[in-house]
């Protein structure tokens, strides 16, 4: 039996814009994945604990407030600290190119800005999940 990819789609921090996250969540579902959606205003701890309990293969973070350098990096670091280094972390939102490079160095495997095709996110996750 084929193993299903499980993805946590989370909105960290203070940002009320979740249309992008919902569209991506839906695209992942339509690609056959099980998507756990957390809703708005999640703390780093909440996201990491949820990732552990749900045993996800990937975490997708969406943020349009500008706090991605703090929050994306914190989620990635805490996942590692908790022994979940095999979880793929990807992020999306309004993220300048310089930041995207820094995020990748910090362990955020993929950064997707405005105009990204959903298909590309699906392909990226399918190709890069580690389990």
């Amino acid at each position, binding site marked *: 039996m084929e193993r299903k990819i499980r993805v946590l789609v989370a909105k960290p921090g203070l940002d009320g814009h979740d249309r992008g996250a919902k569209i991506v969540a839906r695209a992942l579902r339509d690609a056959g994945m099980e998507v756990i959606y*957390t809703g708005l205003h999640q703390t780093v701890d909440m996201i990491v604990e949820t990732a552990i309990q749900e045993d996800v293969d990937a975490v997708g973070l969406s943020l349009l407030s500008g706090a991605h350098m703090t929050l994306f990096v914190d989620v990635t670091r805490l996942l590692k600290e908790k022994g979940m280094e095999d979880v793929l972390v990807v992020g999306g939102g309004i993220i300048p190119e310089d930041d995207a490079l820094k995020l990748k160095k910090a362990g955020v495997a993929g950064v997707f800005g405005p105009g990204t095709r959903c298909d590309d996110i699906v392909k990226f996750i399918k190709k890069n999940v580690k389990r």
Partner: protein
Amino acid sequence: MNDIAANVLKGDPRSIARLITLAENNDPIAANAMKTIHPKTGNAHVIGITGVMGSGKSTLIYELTREYRKKGLKVGIIAIDPTSPFSGGALLGDRIRMMELATDDGVFIRSMGTRGMLGGLTSAVYDVVEILDASGKNIVLVETVGVGQAEVDVIKIADTTLVVLVPGLGDSIQTIKAGIMEIADIYVVNKADRSGVEQTLAEVESLVEIACINKDRKIPVLATISKENKGIVELIDEINKHREHLKKTKTFEAQRRKRYEAELVEIIRKRLMNFIFDESTFKGKVESLIDQISKKELDPYTAADEILGKILK
């Protein structure tokens, strides 16, 4: 990996989470771990929460859990949402109403897709209940998918079944007399701040009166407003009373026995279907039989005999 069962028994969240995944994927490691786990189960009170879409099941679970946590009890939550029959994917959104519980180490929440099961549950739910039970949870709450009329499988797994209704169903309660209106140990009329609540309560009460003639227990009907935490303490009180009733009338063990029966049937069903439809030796045969049925060269019953004949020799 071989001490995953031992770590589950210690209550380690990562091991619990990983074993649930293995069980969902029918991995032999899970079957092996369940051998160690099963003897350590049976302590948790399993509460099934079912009801129509949008009746507030998730929020009710959140409030129940907060109340149980005040008493120092550990809670496991299984939240089931439908898997798309087309893509095989699922959007599991019950956690949205429970995120405040995410960082409480006395609570473990797992979202699951139905993965093709009808009836409101998912195939691995029996395993997951046992895993959470063995990990030391005192209460296991099982939230079914939003149900229509006939998805009543939750009674196979729950010690106590709550059917959650909302005001404004009106006459439709009359039309759902069968199915989910037959399975409640406790009725909850949630969102009781909405108009029409008196009518709904009266309708359910009258149903209950007819249903409970000559029964030793009258099914309670409670009004709750989850988002204001109203009626939750009373609901827990009724759940406890129901548990005592089960123990006193010795139906507790009989009900558990039915759960194990359902679990055994499910494991056999799963393995048999896998054997027939996924094993490569049979797969080609099945495909060619379907082709023959399509061309009217064969009828479905004869085709079924051909497959089963190879197994039931």
